[in-house]
């Protein structure tokens, strides 16, 4: 058994639900700095391991805590308890094109976005043609991105992110960008990605997509881990659960 790519060890994440939050100085003084808050555990004591080179899916209903867990994996949020160990360089793709500056050109934004995602300048230069080519933005690459259509915008964002080539990629339902042809292209890119020994962790609502792409799946329900294992078994359990709920 090789070393796992990601170890999630008893991770919990708590949110404070502010009934009355002290966002202004006045309210803080009036209430003597006491915000009124309820606690809410979005993720409770979740542990699993993600094997290297696999595509790992997180599934669950709305509000199950899967997005919170994904944000913890992307290091945007920090777990209140437990720890997450990443063996390798990780990059996250929670929203395409975040960090684009509307007044800068597509080319300038590739460099900006690439470095936000942790890519060195020389690596971006080396992959520049590939990125532009894959995005299909073509001659518009030297135009400010505010003139882009929304499709071009997300395609360029996606193209930058997929070319970062981290050891571990954390993705949030972004496969649903672009038209049919672009979707097919990006799916192939993902396959290429995992075939080269890299790991993908993704959150999605589409069970069909999970069955097609994932090797391993973790199912979360109300913040707790319901099941983890091979995609086939877990999606089947989840499907049965969904049918029972609806029926």
């Amino acid at each position: 058994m090789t070393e796992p790519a990601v170890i999630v060890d008893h991770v919990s994440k708590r949110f404070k639900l502010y009934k009355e939050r002290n966002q202004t100085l006045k309210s803080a003084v009036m209430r003597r700095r006491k915000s009124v808050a309820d606690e809410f555990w979005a993720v409770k004591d979740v542990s699993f391991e993600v094997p290297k080179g696999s595509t790992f899916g997180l599934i669950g209903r709305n509000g199950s805590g899967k997005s919170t867990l994904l944000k913890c994996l992307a290091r945007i949020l920090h777990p209140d308890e437990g720890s997450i160990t990443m063996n390798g360089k990780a990059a996250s793709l929670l929203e395409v094109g975040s960090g684009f500056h509307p007044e800068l050109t597509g080319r300038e934004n590739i460099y900006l976005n690439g470095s936000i995602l942790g890519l060195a300048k020389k690596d971006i230069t080396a992959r520049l043609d590939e990125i532009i080519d894959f995005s299909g933005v073509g001659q518009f690459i030297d135009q400010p991105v505010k003139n882009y259509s929304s499709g071009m915008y997300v395609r360029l964002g996606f193209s930058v992110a997929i070319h970062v080539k981290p050891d571990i990629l954390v993705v949030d339902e972004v496969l649903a960008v672009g038209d049919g042809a672009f979707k097919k292209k990006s799916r192939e890119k993902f396959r290429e990605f995992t075939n080269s020994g890299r790991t993908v962790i993704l959150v999605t609502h589409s069970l069909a997509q999970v069955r097609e792409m994932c090797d391993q799946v973790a199912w979360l329900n109300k913040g707790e881990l319901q099941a983890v294992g091979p995609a086939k078994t877990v999606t089947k359990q989840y499907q049965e659960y969904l049918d029972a709920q609806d029926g």
Partner: protein
Amino acid sequence: MSYVKELAATRELLANLTIREVKGQYRRTFLGQLWSLINPLATMLVYTLVFLFLLRFEPPPGDPSGVEGYPLWLMCAMLPWTFFTRVVNGGLTSVVSNANLIKKVYFPRMHLPLAVMASTAVTWSLELSVLAIVLMLFGAMPIPFIPVIIVFMALLALFAVGLAMMLAILNVHFRDTQHFTGIVLQMWMFLTPIIYPLEFVERRAEQVGQWVLDLYRLNPMERFVAVFRNLLYDNRLPAWDDSIYCLAAALIVFLLGYLTFSRNEKRLAELL
């Protein structure tokens, strides 16, 4: 220390964020980067009009440079001050205005205020270069002092960004901070001898009592302004006590800002 390492490892991001600020700022303006020179020129005109013509105030000539003129004397202190306020204002809002980025991607958040500092420093250097050329046309010789000027520019940058980082965290909790800071900075400017000389305060202190001057000179910006005026207008090395005061203020404030920011940055995504 691991946070310093992380910052160093992602320094290219800092460079790119700085370029974003510099390039993005004047895009689609007819005058482009020239705007960064027009703004200080306008301020200079206003104060010159008031002080030279209405109040009939003439600053002493530079010692030993021999340069004369209120506009030059003013700008030697005004440019460091505007740099300071731009970094504080820009840095303090940098976290809130990039909320979208913070909620979607991980990167060391300190690069945001640092990029504001770096991009403002680019503009500032440009302004100071123009000022240096004008000073030379009027007979001053600031060139030999360039290494010292750069050292004090760096110290003022640390001082400003340290303050900005503390305020940036406070601004996440209380959005009042940005409005409040605007007022404080305005008062602060008039409590610093930028548009009038320190002698005004000294003269008043003789009548009221020495404590007025002592209190007045606690302000680190007073020391910075004096140092820049020594270097640019007078063309001499700053006094030791002023230099040490600047150094200490810069290091203490930056360290406090650094600690405040690095301790709170993990929770920024959920607080925004």
